[in-house]
């Protein structure tokens, strides 16, 4: 597997300009002859589909939801970063770049991160022009808030639903192109394979989730914007239907999968209430602007929060990280929560929780001001827990939230399969080993609005339009293999439900490949997953047929992929013999702080599929830090 990152020449701030100039152009009259398939309609997918259609390409866009507006980007709460420096507090493109490289624990590609910081400012302009109702001040200009891992206020927000408002902006742009017949939209349609012809991605296989029909679509290029794989843990903040299927099946067709072990555990989620739990709900990181995190000083203190005086509370983030305090980055805040719970100081019935307390800011600013900032989050918390966060502190605990790993892409966002591009959370590119808050929306939209419209042209200019049609045998073969898998899943009729397998896998992943990982645990996990996968193919029960809506069948295909992917993730975690960002190996730590090994692991690990996860081959893309120099990441 050849890994050419295609990082452009020049100084860091010149690289994107240089690349844009080097890229070949497709003239406007020729653009309409090329067809591009965009899979997924979240921030990355909707923005890519709309922008490519505006340029004149023929676009087909696919999503498994009933409407493109429902992609899980919609659930992002807190905000989106941009280096606008509207606060006059010393922000700049370079500072956002620096914070993101450092926040990612020096495991991201510098050139990509700098481009992201450059484009951040354009995203805000674009969203405002679309009518996205960001929070404003009385003078009518845009407001900002602070987020973890930064000492400037650069986060733009729309109450607690920035994701929905940005997605509706991208969805409205997409809808306009659908109305103009420049995009053909296929909702309730799931991608189940990539068709590779002569080494290039030239189409996809999909299943219509209403009729069960398995179809192929041919095109000149394919763009995957299918999100992350957090649901490998079963319980996560992801929507129930988020899955790894599109990227995993592309991996099986030859796309390298990079850093699957980099997963983000978000520090502020509502704790699990019981075995029936189907998903976890995030409480936005923005709450840490005004909420203070604490646990009782003494282990086993079961008094009510209000009865514990201040001198018997441990505001442990403020104590351990005085300069960043409650706004320490996510990986660090999560690990600190785990540490205090391990010490027996966790709160609530399970002892797996910490307090996020608004008492002081309510006293300082008044209840109304807090309600104006976080009203909908407080409302959501009260609904789920039946507790009032205005009068008692929230109980929170870390939960799986985001996955930094994904399909390997070069600087142009092209995977190791030519013609297959990957945007947003589905790729591995910008966040290294830990993503900072309010950077996911930024990356999804930067990729879709401002990167792929340029870089895909560079690929298409070298391709004859419509050179491959759906009659090539590769299409029928790929469709037949999808049909075969569907038939196999329906034919087992075993005793265990799909959810039962998924839940079991999730428990293995959370206990052995979650917040802390060790060689022993990972080896056990790999053996357990192999056993579970064998059981799945003998004993799963999928009722009904394939020619109608069949939600068990949809889930079964996704869980089958998670059962393979989970093993690769554990192998990646096993081979990365260091701690960095969200990847914490118990063997490499200094009193609970991650200890990186830059000598041996300053690279992205890229896995090549060889028929079975146990045979996958690990390749490396060496990372070079020419601007932000490798250093121990300190927030103290």
């Amino acid at each position: 597997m050849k890994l050419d990152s295609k990082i452009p020449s020049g100084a860091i701030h010149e690289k994107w300009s240089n690349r844009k100039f080097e890229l070949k152009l497709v003239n406007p009259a020729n653009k309409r002859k090329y067809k591009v398939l965009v899979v997924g309609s979240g921030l990355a997918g909707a923005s890519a589909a709309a922008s490519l259609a505006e340029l004149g390409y023929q676009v087909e866009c696919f999503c498994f939801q009933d409407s493109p507006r429902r992609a899980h980007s919609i659930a992002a709460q807190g905000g989106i970063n941009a280096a606008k420096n509207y606060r006059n507090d010393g922000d700049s493109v370079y500072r956002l770049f620096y914070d993101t490289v450092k926040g990612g624990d020096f495991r991201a590609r510098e050139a990509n991160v700098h481009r992201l910081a450059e484009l951040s400012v354009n995203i805000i302009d674009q969203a405002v022009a679309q009518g996205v109702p960001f929070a404003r001040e009385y003078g009518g200009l845009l407001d900002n808030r602070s987020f973890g891992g930064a000492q400037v206020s650069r986060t733009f927000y729309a109450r607690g639903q920035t994701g929905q408002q940005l997605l509706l902006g991208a969805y409205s742009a997409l809808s306009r192109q659908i109305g103009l017949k420049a995009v053909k939209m296929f909702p309730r349609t799931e991608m189940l394979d990539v068709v590779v012809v002569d080494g290039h991605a030239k189409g996809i296989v999909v299943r219509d989730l209403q009729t069960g029909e398995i179809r192929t679509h041919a095109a000149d290029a394919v763009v995957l914007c299918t999100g992350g794989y957090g649901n490998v843990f079963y319980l996560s903040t992801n929507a129930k239907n988020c899955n790894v299927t599109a990227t995993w099946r592309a991996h099986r067709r030859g796309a390298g999968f990079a850093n699957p072990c980099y997963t983000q555990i978000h520090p502020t989620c509502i704790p699990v209430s019981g075995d029936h739990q189907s998903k976890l709900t995030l409480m936005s990181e923005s709450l840490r602007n005004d909420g203070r995190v604490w646990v009782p000083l003494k282990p086993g203190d079961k008094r009510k929060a209000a009865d514990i005086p201040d001198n018997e509370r441990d505001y442990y983030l403020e104590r351990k990280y005085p300069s960043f305090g409650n706004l320490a980055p996510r990986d660090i805040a999560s690990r600190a929560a785990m540490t205090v719970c391990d010490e027996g100081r966790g709160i609530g019935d399970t002892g797996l929780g910490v307090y996020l307390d608004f008492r002081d800011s309510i006293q300082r600013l008044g209840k109304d001001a807090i309600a104006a900032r976080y009203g909908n989050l407080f409302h959501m918390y009260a609904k789920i827990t039946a507790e009032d966060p205005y009068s008692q502190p929230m109980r929170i605990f870390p939960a799986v939230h985001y996955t930094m790993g994904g399909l390997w892409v070069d600087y142009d966002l092209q995977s190791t399969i030519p013609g297959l591009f990957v945007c947003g959370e589905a790729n591995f590119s910008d966040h290294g080993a830990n993503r900072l808050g309010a950077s996911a929306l930024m990356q999804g939209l930067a990729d879709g609005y401002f990167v792929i419209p340029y870089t895909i042209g560079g690929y298409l200019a070298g391709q004859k339009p419509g050179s491959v049609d759906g009659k090539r045998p590769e299409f029928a073969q790929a469709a037949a293999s999808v049909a075969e898998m569907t038939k196999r899943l329906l034919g087992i009729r075993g005793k265990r439900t799909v959810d039962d397998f998924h839940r079991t896998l999730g428990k293995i992943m959370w206990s052995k490949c979650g917040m802390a990982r060790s060689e022993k645990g990972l080896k056990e996990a790999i053996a357990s997953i192999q056993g579970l996968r064998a059981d799945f193919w003998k004993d799963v029960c999928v009722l009904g047929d394939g020619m109608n809506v069949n939600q068990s069948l949809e889930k079964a295909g996704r869980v089958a992929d998670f059962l393979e992917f989970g093993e690769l993730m554990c192998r990646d975690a096993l081979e990365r013999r260091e701690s960095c960002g969200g990847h914490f190996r118990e063997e490499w730590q200094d009193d609970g702080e991650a200890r990186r090994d830059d000598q041996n692991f300053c690279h992205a690990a890229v896995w090549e599929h060889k028929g079975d996860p146990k045979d996958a081959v690990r390749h490396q893309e060496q990372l070079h830090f020419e601007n932000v120099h490798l250093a121990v990441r300190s927030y103290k």
Partner: protein
Amino acid sequence: MKLTLHIWRQSKRSTAADFQQDGRMARYELDGVSPDMSFLEMLDVLNEQLIKKGEEPVVFDHDCREGICGSCSLMIDGEPHGPQSGTTTCQLHMRSFRDGAEIWIEPWRAKAFPVVKDLMVDRSAFDRVVQAGAFISVNTGAPQDANAIPVPKADADRAFDAATCIGCGACVAACKNASAMLFVGAKVSHFAHLPQGRVEREARARNLVAAMDKEGFGNCTNQNECEAACPKEIPVRVIAEMNREFLRAKAVEEPPSKKRVGGDG
């Protein structure tokens, strides 16, 4: 908790000629429900039990399970999203019901929302309405600096209140006329309160109203059931604003040009 559930089961998609198909209410007994479960988690438990008995699980739309994606869509005891105000089905918890309760669960019922299977309906009519003009015609890359367009905070807040719509369709399901005017009004209001949105205001009002009528949604007779059912508590003032925008468009505009609104993309 122990519950008796009556759930709409329908195996084939509704058609104009046969909306009901083989649909019927089926009765299920369910034990061991925890008050901390969400309504959808309760249905998950039912489905797990059905599969183990060899019966096909109940189909229903759901995704984010945190009240924002707008996928979930159940008529619970005759109320869209159930008894709690300002709450989607996925955020409704079983503690809102008493032990031993009998609960009736149906799909949204509206001509414009055909049933796909069981409790799943087709809401693509909403997408088509949006495609008719619920956007600002701006291409990627064209805009000026974000702060070049100041928006008074009061206007921005009003636009935001309308923009919180999650497109679930509860307003249509609650309305005896199956009117979509709260949904469409929210779109009109969102853009009408922003300077960026005012450039195309007349065309937008006309096109959205025409699209809504074409999809077969009914008219508003001021019962305000939609506002009561809306999980995001969109106020009915957006309907008044839509009517005002529509009348304004009729009053000030030349007859519509044959050219399509929205530019040439």
